[in-house]
């Protein structure tokens, strides 16, 4: 089965009001080209589930978001994501603020077809006070109360992988695949953007096959987009773009989403990449050292 499609064709599965999970972590391996294609579309009222970075910030700023399910939205070296901060402080979006681990459990519950997974996370904190739909339950096996973390069922997952073949076998060559496997498994449809498309025999090497974290039947669409994670990183191919993130923060602060979109979004991904120096410049971005 050939799953290679354009970003626009893949994103046509996303309808108003859907719940969309976005893989990656903060400024790292975010499917930003897919996010930009979403920004250029008419879709709205989305619920976004993510370990958020500029993906969440931009979608909030562009008024495509009804609700964000999050534990943080951060660019790491810049602890507070500027557009998300602004949207939050203006009360422009609804939120469900949960712990990082609760988010993982919610994805696992969805992947496994469970209505919830019991956990102690959230007990004694405002997480359960502020999200009253997250219930506490009795255990049949002990006398303690447990938080019943509900399944985070996703209509669509967007993730960025290093390489894939046309049938949807995806390699993440980065040192961490984060929770991307759980985003994909929690979703009815998964759209994977990749830096490189390879022939299927690329995966014959067992060392490479070990970097495949979900089965191809979990991938519905593959979008070939070199540099597609920019300005987030796609380790080991390129690092995140500190200078661009700084410019992004300035533009959001000065003129909001319109200022950033006017300077950078462009009519398609080629135009975007030209506005940030071209694909060669993206692929030359150094990897961060911690």
């Amino acid at each position: 089965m050939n799953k290679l499609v354009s970003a626009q064709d893949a994103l046509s599965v996303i309808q108003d009001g859907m719940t969309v999970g976005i893989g990656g972590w903060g400024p790292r391996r975010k499917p930003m080209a897919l996010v930009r294609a979403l920004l250029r579309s008419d879709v709205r009222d989305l619920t976004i589930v993510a370990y958020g970075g500029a993906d969440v910030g931009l979608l909030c700023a562009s008024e495509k978001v009804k609700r964000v399910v999050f534990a943080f939205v951060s660019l790491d070296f810049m602890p507070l994501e500027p557009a998300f901060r602004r949207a939050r402080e203006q009360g422009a979006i609804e939120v469900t603020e949960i712990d990082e681990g609760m988010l993982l459990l919610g994805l696992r519950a969805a992947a496994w077809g469970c209505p919830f997974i019991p956990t102690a996370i959230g007990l004694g904190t405002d997480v359960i006070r502020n999200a009253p739909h997250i219930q506490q339950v009795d255990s049949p096996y002990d006398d303690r109360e447990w938080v019943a973390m509900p399944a985070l069922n996703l209509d669509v997952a967007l993730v960025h992988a290093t390489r894939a073949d046309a049938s949807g076998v995806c390699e993440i060559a980065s040192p961490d695949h984060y929770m991307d496997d759980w985003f994909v498994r929690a979703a009815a449809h998964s759209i994977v953007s990749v830096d490189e498309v390879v022939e299927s025999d690329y995966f014959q090497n067992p060392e490479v096959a070990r970097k495949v974290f979900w089965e191809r039947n979990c991938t519905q669409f593959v979008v070939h987009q070199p540099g597609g994670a920019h300005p987030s990183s796609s380790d080991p191919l390129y690092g995140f773009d500190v200078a661009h993130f700084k410019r992004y923060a300035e533009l959001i602060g000065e003129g909001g989403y319109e200022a950033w979109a006017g300077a950078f979004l462009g009519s398609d991904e080629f135009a975007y990449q030209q506005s940030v120096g071209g694909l060669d410049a993206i692929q030359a971005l150094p990897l961060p050292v911690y």
Partner: protein
Amino acid sequence: MTFSLAELMICAASRVFDEDGEVLATGIGLLPRLAASLAMSTTNPDLMMTDSQSFMLSKPNPVSGLTDHSTQACENWMGFSRIFDNVWSGARHALVGPSQIDRFGQTNISALGGTYAAPKVQLLGVRGFPGNSIYHANSFFVPQHSRRVFVEGECDVVCSIGYNPARLPRGYSFEDIDIRQVITNLCVIDFSGPEYRPRVVSLHPGVALDEVRDNTGFDVSVGDALPLPETAVPTTEQLAIISQLDPNNLRSKQLKGDPPGLRLPEGEST
């Protein structure tokens, strides 16, 4: 021997890991990371530590001067999903810097003021604090001891469980909650006072108890040990190891003005 206040705080904070045995030590922020790395290099070599990315290390990485990760002492892959397997096993001790701490030891890194729908100031979000606080040991690092951090009432957003009877979950006791120490630029505090209330463990050299009380929004007890002990000053060996862990001296940029560890007498200036 001269040393900075940052170095004094690193050494004081490193001691929170002394008796931990084989647990994952996580210091978030430069000084807490140095504290955990110092403990692993001296008093508790059994500690486990990551590269802040995706590998466990048998020897801590330096916090400055590292040019790439290729030569680090990897032990095992430790991606973020696997961190949670460790967190939920309880075998972890985190040293973190909250924006607010209240008298119950509850903390806040999420937001300040306003409402849940529209906070006055959005901070980080709750991140992993709720899970960390119910599953494993936590200590706190406060670079600027003030009433803005040590708040009078409850934290604006309670991100981590503390010793608050009104929020104790059914079936739980305070013994299930493990808050170790708070290391500030003035003193060390724990929660071993009556009914798990905050207690000053030691004062840094030259700090008076009144200064701590003036800058804390709630009462702190002092136990029986008056006068209060002085926080131990760094040893030559500790300072040498800190220098190796931070060759570019980023620690000198963490506290405003990089104050000395021993306060100058009143009226003298640097």
